[in-house]
Structures are given as C-alpha cells and as structure tokens.
C-alpha cells in the first residue's frame, strides 16, 4: 500500500517538534520538502509543480494530513506532546488510511454506559499518562520482533496501558482502561493499547471451559437410596436367617424321625408351611403377569412362583427368580434351597458380592504395578541423564575420567536395566494367558503403550559422547591390525543391531518392502562392524 517513492520522506517528518514556530498554526507545509505554504491552494499548486512525478497523491495526502494535524495539536495545547494522541488525531487517521477507530465511550449493552450517557464525551485523556515513554528521535516499536523505527509512515502511538511506543500495526487494539491505566471492563474508557497488553490481559487466552460438579446432588440422592436399601437388606437377611434356622431344625427332626426319604407331597406342604410362617405369600389369583418381565402367567406354560423372602409372585425364568442356597456358609451343593426373586437376591447378596470381589485380584495388576514402577524410575533418572549429555556435548573433548562421563555411564547402565525390564514385561504381557476378549484388548493396549514408551524414551541412550582421543580403554588400538572397540561401544552396536532387527521384522510384517530393504542393508552394515570390532577382542 505504501509506494516506494514515499520512502524518500525524512524519517522523523511526522514527529512534532516542540520548537516549531507558532505562525504555523494551520500547519501547512509541503509533506515532501517542508516548504511553508500560506493556504491549501498554494500547496496544491506546489505539489503539482514540484513533486508531481514523485508522488502517489493518496499517500502524500495521508502523510500531509497527519503532519498538519499534529502541528495543529502541538500548537493548540500548551504541552505539545500530550495532545498528539487525542481523539481527533485518531479520527483523522482512521478516515484517511489507518483504519483504526476507537469505540465510542457509551456502550449501550453495558449497564454502566447506559446509566451514564456523558461517558461518550470522556476522551482517553483522563487516563493517566504519567507512565508514558518519553519521545525521542529514534524510537522503535516496542513490540517484540517488530523493532521498526517509528516514523510518520509506521505510525507512532503510546500504548495507554504499558505506556511504550508502538507502530500502527502493533497498536491497533483497544480495551477499556480505568483512569489509572488498568483494565476495567465495566466502567473503563476505550483506549488504544498495544498487541502485548491486548493479548496478554487476563482471561484472553483462557481455554479451560466451564464444568459443573453434580456429585453432591448425586450423593445425596444415593444416600437416601442406600439407607432404604440397608433397611431392606437387614429385613431380608433376618428372614433368611429365620428360614435357615427353621430348615436346620426341620432337617434335624426329619433325620432323627425317618431314615427313609419323605413323601414328596407331605414334605412340600411342610416346607411351604415353614416358609409361609416367615413371610405372607401373595395371593396367586391377583397376579396375572410376572411383575418383573411382564410375561402372562398360564396354567402350565408359565407357572407362578413365590419369592420366599418377600412373598411376591414371580415367574420361574432365570432372570426373574432363582434358587439360592439357604445356609450362607453351606458348601454342600445339595443343601436346602429356596426360590428368591431377582430383586431380593440382589439385596441379600449385595454385601457378600462386595467382599468377594475386592478379595479377588486380577493377574494384570502386578504387571501394571511393575510397569508403573519402572516407568517412574526412568522418568526420574532420564532427565538427569539427558542433562548430563547436554553439558557434555558442549565440550569439545570428553575425558574418560571425567566425572560427568562416569556418572552418565552409571545412569545409563541403570536406565538400560530398566528398559530391558520393561521390554521383558512387554513380552510377558504378550504371552499372558487369557480367555477373555476384553482382557486381551487391555493387554494389547498395555503392550502397545510399553513399545511407544520405549521408542520415545530410549534413543538418547545412544547419544553418549565419544570418549576423547587419549581415552585409556583402547590402549592397544595402535598396535592391533584391526581397530578394536572398547566393550561399551561394542555393546552399543549390539544393542542397535537388536533394534534394527526389530524394525526389520516389523517392516516385513507390515509388508513395507522398501523400508525393509534399507533396514536389511543397515543390518548387514552393523554385522560387519560388530565382526570387525569384536573379532580381535
């Protein structure tokens, strides 16, 4: 938008000079040669005559307007500098080229603005300017990464908040400030601010959304439910105890009385009498369908059954009622059993279930525990190791005796140990016997997570610096016909060979043959190196 011709303008043509003569009240001077003019017409002619070829009229007019405006402001106000940024100045800019316009003071939406219509008349002059940066001859834009020399072309504005000088682009922001130049979204006055103040104000980059915790409501509701449930289960458990006591008594009686099996009819009648003494049974005729599954009862097809704990009529399907061993601690499978509806069963067995489940532990848990253990040790040590590597990489030569080197190799050793443990764990997980599909999925996920963990964390291990030339280990290297490697280096190679082999297998499995070719080549290379290095040693 700015024409290159315009760069011929003197750089500080726009900065108001306090010593500019007063007769320039109208501020008419040619923007190019600063020759004084008496009126617009003369200037116009002058521009046509003297500068016609050099100028893009629009840009020239823009800068001329600015100069004129500033000069007017400078002479009008006793403190020349303070007035440079009045609203009128901004208006002129926005009309011509700046495109930046402050919001009017009154904000219809905000109650404060609506309540005080005179806010519209308050200019940003009421905001303190005590902290403003002093104008100099060679000011630069204070925005990081900009640093342009401020001139009439770049614009020159004080950020009303931090007080530093900025160019047009980096000060085309506005926010509400209080008279002490602090952000005040409610009653503040719209002020020009810089990019930094705008973007770094509180809450601007907030990306954490709202959430609402409903746990309390839930817990309150659940407490009521659990309380009634406890009462209920107490009641049912008591009935169950009573029943089992009666049965036990009956059994003892029966066994002593007759050794032969009782007649079916009389036994059933007897136990029914026993059961009905504990809870009153619901009348069959009142119930035409099972209350749980809403299936119709029939004379033969879907028979009615009574729950022995609540006395309700339910059907005999597995989901609605089932037989429950009467003696809770009874291990015999052929002990006395009673029919219990699904609701009662859940209530009665609730506690037992809970104990049972927490007791049984899963075989994945120990694997996971050791996984966490190794991971956390690695996470603790690896940054230290990497830090050492960083400090050593800054040095030209690292001595073998260097304490950092020694420490690093010690760290490295334990890290290696942990990594190989993790690797072993991964293998163990793969072989872990399981019949359930879900567990298989969990195991696969665990395995995958170990592999990615190893891949992302292991590579710095290979970055141990080469030990300096006078390093002691390969003392006989000069005498030997083959360059011998120290065992550490050999170990590194072997380790790499293992890694590459892994990659290769993986590539083959995924049928990425071009990758595999490259990998195989590398593998051969490695083998050769190992042979070369390892043979004499």
């Amino acid at each position: 938008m700015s024409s290159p011709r315009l760069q011929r303008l003197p750089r500080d043509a726009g900065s108001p000079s306090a010593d500019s003569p007063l007769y320039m009240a109208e501020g008419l001077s040619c923007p190019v040669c600063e020759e004084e003019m008496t009126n617009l017409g003369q200037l116009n002619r002058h521009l046509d005559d003297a500068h016609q070829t050099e100028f893009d009229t629009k840009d020239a007019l823009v800068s001329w307007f600015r100069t004129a405006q500033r000069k007017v402001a400078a002479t009008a106000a006793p403190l020349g500098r303070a007035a440079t940024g009045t609203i009128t100045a901004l208006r002129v800019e926005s009309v011509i080229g700046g495109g930046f316009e402050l919001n009017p003071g009154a904000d219809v939406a905000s109650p404060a603005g609506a309540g005080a219509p005179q806010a519209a008349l308050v200019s940003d002059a009421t905001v303190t300017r005590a902290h403003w940066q002093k104008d100099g001859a060679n000011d630069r834009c204070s925005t990081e990464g900009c640093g342009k020399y401020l001139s009439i072309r770049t614009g020159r504005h004080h950020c009303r908040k931090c007080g530093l000088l900025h160019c047009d682009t980096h000060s085309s922001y506005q926010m509400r400030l209080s008279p002490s130049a602090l952000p005040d979204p409610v009653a503040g006055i719209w002020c020009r601010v810089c990019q930094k103040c705008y973007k770094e104000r509180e809450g601007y980059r907030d990306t954490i959304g709202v959430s609402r915790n409903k746990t309390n409501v839930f817990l309150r509701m659940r407490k009521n439910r659990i309380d009634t449930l406890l009462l209920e289960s107490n009641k049912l458990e008591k009935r169950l105890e009573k029943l089992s006591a009666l049965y036990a008594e009956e059994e003892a009686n029966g066994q002593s009385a007759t050794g032969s099996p009782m007649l079916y009819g009389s036994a059933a009648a007897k136990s029914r009498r026993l059961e009905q003494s504990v809870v009153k049974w619901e009348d069959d005729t009142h119930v035409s369908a099972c209350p749980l599954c809403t299936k119709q009862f029939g004379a033969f097809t879907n028979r009615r059954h009574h729950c022995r704990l609540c006395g309700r009529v339910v059907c005999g399907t597995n989901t609605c009622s089932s037989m429950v061993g009467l003696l809770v601690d009874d291990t015999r499978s052929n002990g006395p059993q009673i029919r219990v509806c699904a609701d009662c069963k859940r209530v009665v067995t609730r506690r037992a279930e809970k104990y049972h489940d927490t007791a049984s532990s899963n075989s994945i848990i120990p694997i996971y525990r050791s996984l966490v253990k190794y991971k956390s040790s690695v996470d603790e040590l690896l940054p230290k190791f990497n830090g050492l590597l960083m400090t050593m990489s800054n040095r030209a030569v690292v001595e073998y005796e260097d304490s950092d080197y020694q420490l690093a190799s010690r760290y490295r050793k334990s890290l290696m140990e942990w990594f190989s443990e993790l690797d072993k764990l991964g293998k163990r997980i793969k072989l872990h016997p399981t019949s359930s599909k879900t567990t298989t999925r969990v195991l696969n996920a665990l395995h995958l997570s170990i592999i990615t963990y190893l891949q992302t964390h292991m590579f710095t291990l290979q970055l141990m610096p080469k030990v300096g030339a006078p390093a002691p280990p390969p003392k006989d290297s000069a005498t030997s016909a083959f360059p011998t490697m120290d065992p550490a280096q050999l170990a590194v190679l072997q380790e790499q060979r293992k890694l590459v082999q892994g990659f290769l297998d993986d590539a083959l499995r995924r049928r990425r043959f071009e990758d595999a070719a490259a990998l195989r080549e590398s593998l051969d290379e490695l083998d050769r190196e190992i042979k070369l290095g390892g043979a004499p040693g």
Partner: protein
Amino acid sequence: MDVTKAVQNYLNKMITEVTGMKVLLMDAETTSIISMVMTQTQLLQREVYLIDRVDNTQREKMRHLKCICFVRPTGESVQALVEELRDPRLVLLYRDLADFSNTLKKSDIERLAEVDENEVVREIQEYYADFLSINPELFHLNVSAPSHPLFVENLSTWDTRTFSRVTEGILAMLLALKKKPLIRYEKSSALARKLASELSYQIQQEGPLFDFRRPDTAPILLIMDRRNDPVTPLLLQWTYQAMVHELIGITNGRVDLSGLPDVRPEMREVVLNPEQDSFYRKSMYLNMGDLGSNIKSYVDEYQTKHKSSAQVESITDMKKFVEDYPEFRKLSGNVTKHVTLVGELSRQVGRGHLMEVGELEQSLAVNDNHTQDLKTLRAMVERTDIPEDARIRLTLLYALRYEKSPQNATPQLLDILARSGVSDKKIALVGHVLQYAGADQRLGEDLFSNNNVFSRTKNAFKGLQGVENVYTQHVPHLVETLQECIKGKLRDQLYPFIEGASRDKPQDIIVFMIGGATYAEAHEINKLNAQHPAVRIVLGGTSVHNSQSFLKEAAESVGRWGGASGKNNSNTGGKENDPQAERVKSNRIGA
C-alpha cells in the same frame, strides 16, 4: 477462542483426574467428539487401556480398572449407564467417574442414584464438550438430514429434536469458550430468530453457569442461515481441505479411500487431522497449485531422508539412522497418505474436466454475463465426459442466479440434461434447491448483487482490481457480513439483536450457520482472523457440507415440507419416469 483446545482441555481434565489403569466408556456421539481431538496413542499415554462403547453388553467383569464414562445425557446413554450400574454380571466398576457432556437433567441423576446400590460412582461432572471441533476455528454438531432433519412441515419450523440438539450444542460451545454473547441473527430467517431467542432464554435460565469474567465488549454470536447463501456449497473449491471434502468426503476427520482404484491396504481409510499432521496443518488452506509444489518438496524431503538411510556408511550414520527411524517411518506413512490423496484429487479433476467446470461456476457466481455464460453452459451441460453432478451444479448455479431474470433459460437446460441421460431424480434436485433456497426464501439480501446500482458499481470496482485467480473469485456471503461486523457496522435492520445492543467493534465473534457451514467458509474465517489480529472469529454449523450433502439436505427438507409441489416431486421421481412432468414443474418454478 480455540474450539479444539477447549475440547482437549476437557478431556485432559477428565482423564488425568483419575490415576491408574482406566477404561473410557463413551456413546456414539462422544466417541466422534473425542476422536477429533485425541489419538489412541495419546490416550494410552494417559493410561487409558480400554476404550469401549457404553452400550456394549458383551463386556466382562473388570473390577481392577477405573472407569470414566463420557456420554451425552440422552435417553439411551443414561439407560445404558443404568444397566451398567444395576447388572452385577456386567462390569462392576471399581470406581466410576461419570462425565456428562452438556447439562444433565435432575431426573437422570435420580435414576442413576437409584441403581447405584454398590456405591461405585465417585463423581458426576458436567463437561460441555458437546460439539465436534475440526479446526481450531471450525466446529460442527453433526446434525443433518435424514437422521436430524432441520424442518418439519414448512421452512420456518424447526424439527423439535434437532432444535434441542442444536441449542444444547451451541450452549455447550459457549460454556466451553466461556462466552456470554450478544446474539444477532439473520432477519430473513425464521429459524435463526427462533434459535436466537431460545439461546437467549436458556442463557438467562442458566444464570450462574454463564457468570464469566466481564469482557471489554460482549462477544457476538451471529446466527446465519445456509439458505441465504446456497451458492458457496455448490461451488467447486480449490483448497486442499475443501477439495478433499468435495471430491472424496471427510467424515469425522476420516477419509474413506476404499473406493479408489488399486489403493494400498493401509490407505483404505486415512485420518486428516491438523492437530497431529503437520504437513496437513501447513497445507490445508493451500490451493491446488501451491499444494502441488508443497507436496513435491515434502516427497523430496522424504527421499533425501530415505536415501541417507539407505546409504549407511559409518557408525555415526547408523546411529543417526536408528534414532531417526521411528520418525522416518511416521513420515513415510504420511507422505504416502498425502500423495495418494493429492493424486486422487488431480485424477478426478482431470477426468471430470473440473477446471473448465470451475471456471464457469465462478463466472456464473460472480459475473453478470448472461449471454456468454449461457452459451458456455449449454455446451457444457451436454457433455457426457463431465460428471453428472457437476452439470447439475452448473445448472443450479445458473438457475439460482437468473431465477428472476426475464431471459431465464433453466427449463431448456433441464431439457438438455434429460436428453443427455441424467436421471430424473437428479434433475429434480434443481427444483428442490430452488424451493429450498431460491430468491423467495432468501428475502432480505441480494446474494448476487444484481439488483441495485450501488452493488453493481461495487462489483465493477472489484473487477477493476484485477482477478488473481479465476477459480477463486467468489467470496462467500459470510465474509462481507463479517467484515461489516468487525467494523461494528453490521446493519441492525438485517441482523437485529435478540436482546441488548452494542455499537462497539466486537473482539470475539462466533458465527453459527444453520443448515451447515463449508470448508470454504472456514478458510475465509482463517484469512479474516489473520487480517484482523484484534478480532477472533470461530465458525460453527449444524454440519459441514460439500455440494453433495448440501443437495441431499435440500432435497430431504423439501420432501419433508410436503407441500403440493413436494408431493409432486416424489411422485414423478419415484413412480413414472416422465421428464415432461419435471419440465412442467421447473417451468413453473422458473417463471
């Protein structure tokens, strides 16, 4: 104002608050929400070892895992959770942290409390991650016909179910971004007004939730209606993201390539996500030409790496190779993906002569040049080497542009289409869209600026500035609206406030497009954000359209209105293949 970050933050908070091995249970909708912002590897890193659907009844007991349920509180999800909590044969959760996207009804909490006899639920939270984020500045609600039709009976009545879904989605988005906006809507759209007033009511109802830090000036929520700009989704787009969506189709960040000739097995379905794919992030808004050179340098980069890895000469090379290998493999997969995609795009462009089509489309949309365009159009509509869909689109653009023009030749064009063997059902789409978003529907605004002298002059000025690229001349209607909005000069008569008002220049703008946004518009938003650093704009829509899904939505809606003409359409389309009937209908519409 970054919708992707907002969802990610919710998810992170949810997952990292629970330590140890975790299961993540989700329903269909939350699964797609999460898959847009996080990969499985990222979940694994946070110790989520099992991801499952909440309505899966085949799960076994897994008491050693802690469970996080992230579901929308729909009837089905709550029911599934109730089953989960009740039935001891299924998973009994050691610890359960139920998270709900969007607001949870009291009755639902009660139902859950009622069945949680084993006291496994530890916490219930409402998280407002109830929208799908595609780019940091683009989200949608995945609401479109036929599963979620917008209208019932007529064009100004919302479908109740869709309406509540959209309201919830927008409220959630506002809460996630912490915005309490002033709501403006497109006046000509009854749907927009209804939605605006409902949102305003809901925000008041949820008072304490919307109690945020006071901004300097209230953010603006601008509700627009797709039917006021039917042109943008019909145009061929030439930027990467938009093109992939138009020519292949992106569903939940995934692109299905299984229909391509000789595609490699691992490329059947690829993921396009600017979060994880840096090449895509850099080039999603590039046009075809720039994209070509970009992908070439990408391949070169890959090849140099490949070469260097193939020529391992020293131990140092070797070391470097081993270190780089995982990164290299990732790169190799990515290169193959983008080469396949771009290859397919250029194949389709070449085969369908889409460059020619695109040029004419732009001319129809932008220039007022009836005679010349009609001539070219007639020739093109006949050509069978151009895909049917493209020819339908061209006819449609013409029909929309010259709908009220006395020289309108739409019926003849439809004739030509029918003669060249295009099925009646497809031809009927023209009528559908005219009904859906024709001049009578658009009311307020002058989309093509061919009515008044002022806008004509403006157009002429645009022409004088010179055309950079014949394929990208058209600027969506949305852009002009937003530019005025940024200046604080959006006209109250066209975009009234539902409540309150402000003359200030907005600093945050959220645009919501009823009837679906497009990737072209997302691109424009991205440009606007770059041009105006003091303003942040986010675009949302009921869905993200390409021309096909837009046409489908239009046809579906028109069929649903069931007016006399609607019935007519389905009769002719379904039973008798009578092009005569179609012509009669379109004549009537065209006149």
